[in-house]
């Protein structure tokens, strides 16, 4: 069985769990859930390239990477809001505004890609590096922020959900970190010279992706259960 199909299926499950959770819960969860749904888009686009001809268009690939970047931004924004809530008990805004805001960013990104020259493979590589950099560094920041949120809410029913999120970002760090490492050192170009570290990086990337998708789906299911 192709690993890409496994990834797609797992991310579909994770995305659905996340989206359904966002619909049934408080506004402060909306950004976090929408961010994880965007990962689904960002993952499905490149993973589905072999099965859906037309997706190999450079603009579509660029949009996939940009969507991934937007995803981690929105997730981080969501956790930042939750962190603020845990400190001040203040929550503002409406769910609809979050949906519309994210949609507007995606439309603007699409326009940006369309009005610019067709991305070359080097351009796509740089966009992907930017995406992976955002994921890696924001994952570390999110782990620390979630730790602080956990400290604030640790004796509430939902607190274990935040421990699960720390694992999610740990897996994301491995998944995206491995990819970034390969890209920054160009290991895919010199794989024959450094076969071990290249292979380890690929394995970490694949396993990280797998564990992330599983842990995202599981985390939202745990959260739904805790908030029942």
């Amino acid at each position: 069985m192709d690993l890409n199909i496994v990834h797609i299926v797992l991310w579909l499950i994770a995305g659905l769990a996340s989206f359904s959770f966002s619909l049934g819960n408080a506004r402060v969860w909306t950004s976090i859930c929408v961010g994880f749904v965007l990962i689904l888009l960002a993952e499905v686009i490149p993973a589905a390239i072999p099965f859906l001809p037309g997706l190999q268009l450079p603009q579509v690939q660029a949009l996939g990477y940009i969507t991934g970047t937007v995803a981690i931004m929105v997730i981080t924004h969501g956790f930042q809001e939750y962190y603020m809530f845990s400190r001040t008990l203040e929550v503002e805004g409406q769910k609809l505004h979050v949906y519309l805001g994210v949609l507007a960013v995606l439309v603007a990104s699409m326009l940006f890609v369309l009005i610019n020259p067709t991305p070359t493979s080097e351009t796509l590589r740089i966009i992907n590096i930017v995406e992976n950099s955002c994921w890696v560094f924001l994952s570390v920041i999110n782990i620390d922020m979630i730790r602080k949120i956990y400290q604030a809410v640790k004796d509430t029913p939902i607190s274990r959900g935040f421990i699960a999120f720390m694992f999610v970002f740990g897996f994301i760090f491995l998944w995206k970190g491995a990819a970034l490492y390969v890209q920054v050192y160009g290991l895919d170009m010199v794989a024959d010279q450094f076969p071990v570290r290249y292979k380890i990086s690929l394995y970490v990337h694949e396993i990280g992706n797998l564990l992330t998708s599983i842990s995202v789906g599981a985390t939202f299911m745990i959260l739904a259960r805790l908030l029942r």
Partner: protein
Amino acid sequence: MIFLPRGIPVREKVNPARINLPEAMAKLRDGSFTGYLRFDSAQGTGVVIFERGKLVSALYIAADEKERLIAYDAIARIFEISILGNATLNIFRLVPELAIGIHALLHGSYLYRGQDLKLVNIEGLQRRIRDEQISGCLRVYAEDKVVLIFYEQGHSLGFFHDGGDDIVTTADLTRSVARLPGVRFDLLETAYGRNLMLADLMASADLGPIWQRTRKLLLDDRRKSEEKAIRSMEERQELRRQQLLLQMKAIAGNHIGKFGISQVDKAFSLVGPDIRVEELAKFYDELQRLAKLVAGPKKINAMLDEMKQQASSRD
């Protein structure tokens, strides 16, 4: 208690708090009024006597009879009980001789006091008055009926009974008071003669400043006690609010942990000192909104039910 027969009523059952007493007394002076003003209150009784427009006598006796004031001290205290608002003023007209007689009686010294008339040999008593040539007054009273019998040098001058304005020689009413159950009498010796000339207290001092000073002091006292009452009510309300807040926090702590306590702290700011029902309803709504971020509906509802039960058990 000052026992005096009622004269001819001029004004009855007036609330002196609604009157500017110095002005009213000035009008009595201008009208050459003769008679007495009687102020009754829970604190004590005051009597102010006018004779041909002159304020000749003022007496105040506290209800427990521990305080007896005369002249300006009495006037000041009479003003005080009047301003306090729970006194009753009755004004009775008398003839000048009777007004002086009343004054003499109020300042007389007791030979007998509060004696049971039925246990006394009336003839023996009259003989003693005659033999000792007592000048004074025999006061017979039962319930709210009073009659006075004036004597001079041991000879009876006559009676002053309820509703009259002069000394009369008939004794019908005296007999009717004497027949009432629990009738008692006082015998007072008076130092003043009937034709005594007395100083006008209104001529030697302006009553206006006494009235104003008393009024100011009482209003200040009233304001202070009202402020104190408000403060203590506010303190009680705040204490009650704090107790409820503590109970709500304890319940939240049990259901959704320490974070729930902070949420109660925040949401409870919607509840004022008098803990109104609508404020509590807003508090529950706000708490529910906040709690939804960390707990499920089942836990939240259980918590709110317990809180509502706690709040209603306090009412």
